[in-house]
């Protein structure tokens, strides 16, 4: 009885103790849960010294248990440090050059009227620190389908000390032994990354505006078999006036962001081996190639953007896009459409440090008669792509404003002939047969042949209905594949020539014209669209090692263009499967680790490097670390 009373008297205390313990568990457990969600990040840094004597660096933020040894800061006399090592683990990665989106993407005069952050996430989630310029970075994403971390960001390699680089392009494909050359559109800096030990990245070199005074605004890169790289600098010399290039030639430029652009040859440490003017020694037609301010006696359209080379043919193709600082943002009244260049240049690269322009061609106008002259077919030749097989000598070029694809069957010819072979309208109609607005200024970007020269892939930003005016039905946002096999097979005398208006919508009438193999619309709830892409040129063998392949079964495409673009674009990176017949489809297993839906979203609060908010993925490459690559 006494015992029972003792037990009964203890019961309330036990109940209270239980309640206290439970309350404690609720309070602590919720906190512990969130602590467990925080993943361990290993940080390591790699330095180089720039030509200005300053230190430049890349900082790895490796997710999970990958160990990277600490790297000592270099002494004053040292250059690059040894790269940290980390086993690739038999994986393939996507390396994405991405910029930080921050409050600088909003006009100051807008700030007072609106929440500070452009990033809508910031207005709803106080955790994301989007406002301050945070470092730009290479995102390393697991691209191995069989991996448990497929689609996850496994490292972010942030660059410093320069911010607001506006990451732009890298080279088009990665090959073993290459470095990655990555340009900063606004910093006019080129970074050279060593990715042989992915997921860890180290910095091999950096080129500053001072190192490439003959040009500004770096755009694209092409690596050569010796792993050096050519780069296009689209804008003119950093200061106006005469500039003497590496080959002793002198050109007069009209200054930063003007003309002429140049070709730069880098070594694997970012050292400039040569600077070559993209402009001819003689003037081009001032009416076709106006410059503002004018360049007396040396009018030029030389504003190279795209670049691809055929070292076996000793030829390289660059496509001239536009004189950057004179692109006027008026949709109705383009100030001078001729500032969007219609030209393609072919170079003799038999002497790597002294490439020479052997032909520059004004691409022909097509059959469309656009209300806006800036939308004519030949306007804004942004990108080019060479064929690949030894027997094929052709190359393609595409116009961003014109919305068409050109082809030349032989870039070794003394006077290469370029013809329009496809209008984006014919691809748009696959998604929307009732389309009433053609390819004019549909924002075509990346264009790439596959290694077998069977298919040509093309990304189109598109635009939403109503963009031009209330009657504008818009253009689909898409990546499409063309079957170019017949065109290539036609050799040096293809018949294809889209020069009649019916071929705009129907496609080329000649039997060897490219045909649409597949069109993949990329869902985009914003006013952005896909601009860039890359092919997966690797395949895993039975031995677990990778090797390069000509059989492309995957592409990656990113949805972002240029800085200060507000809340446009969805900043997503999608994986596209390439099936038989070039059939494109979204890989739904390549999912965002936060949202769980297909495509990796660069709009997120947290990254391995911190809560830096949204990022802007401009370009990407499939890369396999050396340890896993034959």
């Amino acid at each position, binding site marked *: 009885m006494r015992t029972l009373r003792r037990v009964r008297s203890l019961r309330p205390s036990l109940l209270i103790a239980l309640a*206290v313990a439970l309350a404690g568990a609720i309070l602590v457990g919720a906190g512990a849960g969130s602590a467990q969600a925080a993943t361990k990040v290993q940080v390591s840094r790699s330095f180089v010294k720039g030509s200005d004597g*300053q230190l430049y660096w890349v900082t790895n933020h490796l997710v999970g248990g990958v160990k990277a040894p600490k790297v000592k800061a270099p002494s004053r006399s040292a250059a690059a440090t040894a790269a940290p090592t980390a086993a690739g683990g038999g994986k393939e990665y996507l390396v994405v050059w991405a910029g930080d989106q921050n409050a600088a993407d909003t006009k100051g005069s807008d700030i007072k009227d609106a929440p*500070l952050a452009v990033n809508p996430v910031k207005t709803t989630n106080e955790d994301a620190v989007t406002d301050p310029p945070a470092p730009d970075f290479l995102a390393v994403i697991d691209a191995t389908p069989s991996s448990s971390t497929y689609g996850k960001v496994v490292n972010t390699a942030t660059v410093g000390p320069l911010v607001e680089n506006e990451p732009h392009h890298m080279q088009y494909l990665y090959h073993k032994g290459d470095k990655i050359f990555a340009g900063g559109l606004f910093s006019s800096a080129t970074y050279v990354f060593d990715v042989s030990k992915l997921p860890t990245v180290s910095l091999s070199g950096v080129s500053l505006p001072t*190192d490439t005074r003959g040009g500004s605004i770096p755009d694209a890169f092409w690596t050569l078999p010796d792993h050096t790289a050519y780069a296009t600098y689209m804008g003119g010399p950093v200061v106006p006036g005469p500039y003497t290039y590496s080959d002793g030639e002198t050109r007069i430029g009209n200054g930063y*962001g003007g003309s002429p652009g140049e070709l730069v040859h880098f070594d694997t440490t970012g050292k400039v081996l040569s600077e070559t003017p993209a402009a001819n020694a003689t003037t081009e037609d001032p009416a076709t190639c106006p410059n503002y*301010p004018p360049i007396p006696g040396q009018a030029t359209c030389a504003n190279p953007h795209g670049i691809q080379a055929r070292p076996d043919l000793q030829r390289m193709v660059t496509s001239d896009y536009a004189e950057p600082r004179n692109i006027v943002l008026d949709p109705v009244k383009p100030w001078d459409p001729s500032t969007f260049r219609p030209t393609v240049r072919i170079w003799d690269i038999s002497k790597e440090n002294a490439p020479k322009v052997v032909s520059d061609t004004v691409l022909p106008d097509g059959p469309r008669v656009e209300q806006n002259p800036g939308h004519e077919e030949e306007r804004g030749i942004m990108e080019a792509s060479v064929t690949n097989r030894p027997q094929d000598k052709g190359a393609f070029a595409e116009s961003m404003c014109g919305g068409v694809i050109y082809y030349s069957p032989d870039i070794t010819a003394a006077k290469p002939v370029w013809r329009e072979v496809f209008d984006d309208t014919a691809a748009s109609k696959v998604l929307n047969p009732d389309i009433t607005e053609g390819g004019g200024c549909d*924002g075509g970007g990346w264009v790439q042949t596959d290694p077998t020269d069977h298919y040509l892939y093309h990304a189109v930003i598109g635009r939403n209905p109503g963009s031009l005016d209330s009657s504008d039905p818009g253009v689909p946002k898409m990546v499409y594949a063309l079957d170019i096999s017949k065109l290539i097979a036609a050799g040096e005398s293809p018949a294809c020539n889209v020069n009649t208006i019916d071929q705009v919508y129907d496609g080329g009438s000649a039997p060897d014209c490219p045909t649409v193999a597949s069109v993949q619309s990329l869902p985009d709830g914003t006013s952005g669209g896909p601009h860039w892409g890359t092919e997966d040129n690797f395949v895993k063998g039975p031995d677990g090692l990778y090797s390069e392949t000509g059989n492309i079964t995957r592409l990656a495409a990113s949805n972002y263009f240029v800085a200060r673009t507000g809340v446009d674009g969805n900043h997503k990176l999608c994986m596209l499967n390439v099936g038989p017949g070039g059939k494109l489809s979204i890989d739904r297993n390549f999912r965002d680790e936060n949202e769980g839906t297909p495509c990796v979203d660069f709009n997120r609060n947290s990254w391995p490097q911190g809560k830096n908010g949204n990022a802007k993925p401009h370009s990407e490459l499939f890369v396999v670390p050396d340890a896993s690559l034959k």
Partner: protein
Amino acid sequence: MATSTVVTAAPASAHSHAVLAGPEAGLVVVYGQLAAAVLVASTVVLVGLVFAPLVAGPPVGPGRTRAVVAAAGIAAAAADVATLVWPALARNTFGGWPARVALAHLLLASAVVVGMRQASLAATAVAGALLLVVLVLSEDHDGSLHILVAGAHLFAATVWAGGVLHLALGWSRASGQRAAVRQAARRFGPTAAVAAVLTVSSAVAATHLHVPRAADLIGTGYGQLVVLEILVAAVVLAVAAAVRRGGEHHEGRRASLVKVETALVSLAVGVGAALSVLTPPAPLVQLAEYRPPVASAACTSRHLGHLAGLLAANDDSPARYRLEALSQRGATAGGSTWSTCSMAEESTPDPGAAALGSAYASFLDSVGVHQATIFSDGSPGSQELTTALVGRARSVGWAVTVAPDWEPGQPYIGGGDAVVIATSTERAASVLAAVVASPSRPTRGVFLAPWLLSPELLTPGLSTNGVQVSIGLGFDPNSNAAASYIDLLARVDDDARPTAAGLEGYLEALAAAERRKVPRPTGLRFYTASEANFLPASVSEGHQDNSAATWIPQRPNANLLPESGVIALPGP
């Protein structure tokens, strides 16, 4: 007349509850404040009655005590459940009171009620103490001092109020009961004294922290409540003393006083609960006084930058600020209330102008300048830069012309490779206009001294027929600091233009607030204003090319793009 500016700003509020927009927001906040006040008051009563037996002996009126405990427990539980059921209430009133905290509070309150009923004193007291801890930590506080003061006040007031209620609930007409109460009161006395002292002292500390300005005690609702609380506490102390002094022969009077004391304590608890859920007034604190170095300067660009820096230093909180100009301000021709800085304001650029001149010579030489014209004036900075630049330039064989006597309105006929402008902003504008209009423009363009970072001087370079304008800067104009300065400047004055002097003022204010010095730049990087774009308008629709927090507001697509690496500045 010297211009002096006293700027005051308010620091972040200690109880920064989120503010909703829209009519529904008001209702949520009101209901939430009510619920929060009920929760605080009921918790104080509940825990107070838990602690009371520890310091004043068992309840004399156990029945009444149990009833009050039950009522307080129900009220606390109701408030908890309300926040669980209506998340908006918690988010917007309870300082982000998460569900887990409401659950924990509910559990502990239930434990206390059960414990009181079953008379498990020690365990109940522990649960009660935890309840108070949860209450303290769940509020927004500005640092550990605030937490300490709030915690001390809560605990002390709970003990004090609980004891008073404990005694009051035992009071009755029965003489035996009254005797028990008197005995309990005597037992409670020392604790009550300590609790009272602690309550009052922590209240004073809290008042100092939350309402530092005496005027706000009268001028704001929160302050008036604080005054009421103070008065009530004072009366309670007086009444308590009177109750203690009264002998057995004045039981009737004592009974009345006990009722009064109980009522006042209840009022104090209620007012205290209300204070804990209301937002204190944002106090105005004089942060800095800025005096320009030159008495005659009417510069306001640096003033505005300084003010923007103060906003940044106060974390851009919803702060009130006052700009108290001690002298008259002039208006510009454009109608803005602020005039631009004069050169006199920027007469001592940091680092030393001689170092700048040397760096300029180095960069200009690297870009092929061999013939230059330098525009200077009589200011010390201009003279230093010019002397250094000329000396270095001539040492490497340049042809350098210095034009100190050039007057606005005269043409520029120099031609040459470069024009360097190291004058005041106003004079620089005239020089630039003359160069742009000249048929003999400098081949490499115009190079501005670092203090001339100003929209009006960068814009001419953006014309398609203009001359390239470059400037050497010791800071990154695309950096976080610069972007924040420009952003906050827009908040200070819509028409204000960002300038180098303004950024200097901004950085100085930030540094002063953080009690550090502005780091001296060790190098320059040269930038040029450019409107480089990459998309035609018809594609860029939606890719709206909003420019940076821009140095050139009238040309929102313009950026300052680097032309060089870092050029080291010679040491002092």
